[in-house]
């Protein structure tokens, strides 16, 4: 099985570096799956899940990122994430509550979007991504 080098760094620290069979990233125009020897590519990322399939392992590593960039060049994938959230201490109930509050806030503000709204909109996207992560991990643990 061919593999490729993957690097995940956030602005505050280096998160992951290693070989992978494939990765799945939340591209701004849609989800991207990248296998080894992909063509050179630079892609903007939106908030969502970044998944790494390690060679010879059933489970995937899951990271929640709040946007950033992905570069593919010469069988190497580099992800420059703005913020990476940890996925091992996510609390679904708390997230659902946060989501409800964020949605309420946005509903009240109506059609006019100001700076604060943009911020809470971004926060909402991140919460949704975290919920996806919870969901995904649950599925994964059921499978194994």
């Amino acid at each position, binding site marked *: 099985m061919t593999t490729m080098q993957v690097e995940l760094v956030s602005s505050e620290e280096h998160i992951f570096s290693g070989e992978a069979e494939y990765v799945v990233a939340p591209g701004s125009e849609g989800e991207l799956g990248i296998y080894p020897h992909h063509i050179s590519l*630079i*892609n*903007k990322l939106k908030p969502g899940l970044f998944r790494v399939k390690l060679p010879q392992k059933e489970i995937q590593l899951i990271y929640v990122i709040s946007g950033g960039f992905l570069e593919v060049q010469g069988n190497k994938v580099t992800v420059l994430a*703005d913020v990476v959230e940890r996925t091992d201490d996510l609390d679904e109930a708390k997230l659902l509550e946060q989501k409800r509050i964020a949605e309420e806030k946005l509903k009240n503000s109506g059609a006019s979007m100001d700076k604060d709204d943009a911020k809470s909109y971004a926060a909402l996207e991140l919460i949704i991504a975290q919920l996806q992560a919870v969901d995904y991990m649950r599925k994964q643990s059921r499978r194994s």
Partner: protein
Amino acid sequence: MAAGKEIRTQIKSVQSTQKITRAMQMVATSKMRKTQDRMRQARPYADKVREVMAHLAQATEKSASPFLRIPAQTKRVGIILITADKGLCGGLNTNAIKLFAEKLRDYKDQNVEVEVCTLGQKGLVAANRLKVNVVSSAVSLGDVPQMEKLIGPLTGIFRDFHDEKLDAVYVVYSKFVNTMKQQPIFEQILPLSDRDLRVESKYPWDYIYEPSAEEVLNQLVRRYLESVIYQCLADNMASEQASRMIAMRSATDNAGEAIHQLSLAYNKSRQAAITKELAEICAGAAAV
């Protein structure tokens, strides 16, 4: 010679000062390690962003992004002044501000307008005192550099460069050389120098861009600039703690020295009083 009681109070006050400086020294020592770790942790991101940006800049035209332009002349410059929030850290802030004031004078002589963005309380106070045009500022940055706190103040200055209102952007901060040495640095951020964009060209072909080359490049340059400033701030925080540790250590040593001198004086005056009293008794006895 001062009376015994007065010296005793003096000793006590110096002792309590010493306690404070020793505590501050220890706090600074433990924080210094953490800030140094953070300084190192921020490096991979900055390196990677630079790498990707350099690849991109090579693959696209120089005119693709306003951030890549090289202005013909320098009429207006922006300076980002990074200092600590708190004092009591030796000459750290003073040196950085001195360097800043020097550069201000140079620009004034050359009739170049300056706008300033300050990060850290001390820099803001100094900039206001020097009566420069402060366009944005951030204070109370704490001990952990946080990207969110930086983005707001920096946006203005980078946008001005983007809109050709500024011809160059510089940063002043204290570089962490080692624990004993911190160097105030004046560095060019924009326009991007060749050093920033140099790359070993293994893959000269172009990329696929999503959404578009321009948008990707613009946002990437912004991230690069932010990460450079973040790195400077992390450096500055490590310098602050190291410098404070050194300053507090010498303050503690000096207080010890002062206590030694004072107790010597106290013992002397006590001995003198006893001798005097004895002499008086002897003299009295002899008179009888």
